[in-house]
């Protein structure tokens, strides 16, 4: 911005003027093309081919099947499918959306509470802030491992706390199989993701000018009102960022935790908790249906784009104010 010229010279001149900028972004552009875009274009084409174990060596010269896989999925959406390859994918889509919803709601709500608690003046604040961040340094595949032990119905930590220590429930809950599997996955994800959300919100809270609160207090606003009319609106930009991250992580995530949490590496979490990325990975690397896997990935990307579109509509205003500041 500072370097931008006063008048509007020709494009070439402007480009020459910014030669340093181009040098600076050159490595990134190369990396983006090599690692992201060229492979993505190949992947898009791959989704139109019948590539499987026997034809993998042909790769892009494999038989062309066009939009076969997409048609299969859309037909299955409308009429259902007998093949577990496709119905499993649809089922995983439902689970993934549910997973994304719950992880986001829980992470943001708990993160907000935690950030509010940390955004007070108290003596052990520094230590508290550090301790809260600790789960974030635990790698996700370790998170999966830990929670495998925690969820065990007999002798697992969760049931020990709920049944033996607190006595909230009489019967131990089964987490690792059956309908609770998805929540087992959600809670593990929230545990890992909470610290980051908390710290980001805390950081935003700390730059809210205190006199705003003081003025509101003089006007007789209670704590809840102050939160509702001061804190929340000013947190909107960071909430927008966190929701976007949350949606991406929710739709594209869950693999590492699921692999370690259910069955030590089989990566099949059952129909209650099978997410899209594990499901696609299974179709690709266990069934060797590389073309179908690519098509499913494209559909997953479209699903994400839909969510990003919704996200943009919801948060458009707060994005604009952020951009203006």
């Amino acid at each position, binding site marked *: 911005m500072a370097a931008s010229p006063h008048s509007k010279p020709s494009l070439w001149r402007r480009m020459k003027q910014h030669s340093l900028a181009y040098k600076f972004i050159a490595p990134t552009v190369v990396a983006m093309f090599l690692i992201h875009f060229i492979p993505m274009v190949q992947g898009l084409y791959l989704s139109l081919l019948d590539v499987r*174990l*026997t034809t*993998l*060596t042909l790769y892009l010269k494999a038989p062309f099947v066009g939009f076969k896989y997409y048609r299969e999925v859309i037909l299955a959406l409308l009429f259902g499918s*007998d*093949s*577990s*390859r496709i*119905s*499993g994918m649809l089922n995983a889509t439902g689970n993934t959306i549910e997973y994304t919803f719950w992880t986001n709601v829980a992470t943001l709500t708990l993160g907000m509470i935690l950030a509010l608690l940390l955004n007070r003046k108290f003596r052990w604040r520094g230590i508290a802030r550090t301790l809260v961040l600790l789960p974030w340094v635990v790698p996700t595949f370790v998170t999966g491992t830990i929670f495998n032990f925690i*969820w*065990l*119905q*007999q002798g697992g930590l969760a049931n020990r706390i709920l049944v033996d220590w607190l006595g909230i429930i009489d019967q*131990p809950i*089964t*987490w*690792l*199989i*059956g*309908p609770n*599997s998805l929540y087992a996955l959600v809670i593990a994800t929230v545990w890992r993701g909470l610290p980051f959300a908390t710290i980001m919100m805390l950081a935003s809270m700390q730059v809210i000018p205190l006199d705003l609160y003081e003025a509101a207090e003089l006007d007789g606003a209670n704590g809840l009102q102050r939160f509702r009319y001061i804190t929340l609106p000013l947190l909107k930009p960071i909430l927008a960022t966190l929701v976007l991250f949350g949606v991406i992580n929710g739709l594209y995530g869950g693999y590492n935790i699921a692999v370690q949490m*259910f*069955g*030590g*590496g*089989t990566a*099949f979490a*059952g*129909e*209650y908790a099978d997410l899209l990325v594990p499901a696609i990975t*299974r179709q690709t*690397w*266990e*069934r*060797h249906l590389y073309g179908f896997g690519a098509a499913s990935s494209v559909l997953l990307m479209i699903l994400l784009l839909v969510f990003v579109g919704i996200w943009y509509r919801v948060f458009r205003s707060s994005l604009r104010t952020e951009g203006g500041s």
Partner: protein
Amino acid sequence: MLRSMQRSFRGSLALLLCLTLLLSACGANETGSTATSATGGNAAQAEPTKAPANTEAPAATAAPAATEAPTEAPDSNTAAVTLKLWHMPNGAAPAEAMQKEIDAFEAANPGIKVEPEMLDWGAAFQRIQTAVQGGEGPCVVQLGTTWNPTFAAMGGLRPFSDAEITELGGSDSFVDASWETTQLIGQPGAFSIPWFADVRALAYRADLLEQAGLKPEEAFKDWDSFEQTLKTIQEQNPDVAGIAFPGRNDWNVWQNSSMWIWNAGGELLSNDSEAAFNSDKAIAGVTEFAKLYGEKMTITNTLELNSSQVDAAFGDGRTFSIITGPWLISNARTPEADGGWANRTVADNLAYAQFPAGPGGQYTFVGGSNLAILKSCPNPEEAFKLVKFLTANESQLRYTQNIGMLPATKTAQSDPQIASDPLYSVFIAAAANGKTSASIAEWGQIESVLNEQLGSLWDDVAGTDGVITSDKVKERLDKAATTVDELLGN
């Protein structure tokens, strides 16, 4: 000024990049030669660059005397051939057990060095696939029996010639079910050689059975008597469940169910080309299996467990019987300090029985592992020597007992060490009635489909508190059949 500044920046950047490349190049070797140079702690093995990164450390602690001999041998013989061997974590102390065989082989074959690397089961398939496609990898590789046809179909395995098979003792010298797994349907010859067999049977507590006044021949005779036995045991021992087996969270989902399918008179595939596991007989078998949970004959949380946790539940005395393999024998004979069960009530009373016969017969699953030579191997003759050594009697007896599996050769199985052992003998008898997966390239995919639907069936069972009808089983198996037929191109 400007130029020189930029240049110095570029210079420092280039330096950093070089440094990074150097760092990464250090660890570039696929077998992890970095580790060899860096593991100062294992000084004993650090000298030869060829020292295997993987197995050295445990070997050093377990048998320091044994490792010294082979490290000196190649020094005197500079024209040594190095064979890379990929193996999986077999048994409780996988690296030590493998190193013992390698040491013995190297002592018998001066001039050949074996460089082992241990792969985990989760990554092994992928690594072998890359090795086959990338044309660079080990010479000798352990294959899960169900993988043999896949890699053979990909053209990555060097077939064994008739002369070589004769030299190994002929195909008749191997357990039949194991030998089947070396084939690829539609192509002649063997693509791998059976290494060890993993046979499944029922492990049970002899003391509890005796207290109940039951005889093993009667107690495990057929499905009815088996269920009766479990109920009797549970009535007499309130703290002990009848049986335990893993549900969805395990690698053995389809193996465990397949025995119920076979014993009910069903098949997994018909003519190796069409799904048959959704026949009425097969459905009856799986329903019978699920009934064990529904009628509360299992430990309460059995479905969330994996095989290892099930074994532990047995070792802890919480269950009367489990579906398992021969490895519990080595558990029972290993002292408690080393993680075994020796001197426990369970260990003293460990007994095995074949699976109860169903209306269709009395079969069991035979899996295990084979040894294959990759086509890209530059020293196939030496590689064959290694395969021959590992499938010969001496190594078979030692290695399989160390890892708790069954030898794959009939000679080794009939050795008194195995044959007259009351525990091992059950497996030998069971192996005679062994069944295994179809030798077709698509088996790996079929297995994945089966695991998915049978695994989900356990989810259904858990979700409905155990009440499972044959309709639900049929729904699952039909779904799997449709998918499998699709994979097979039907």
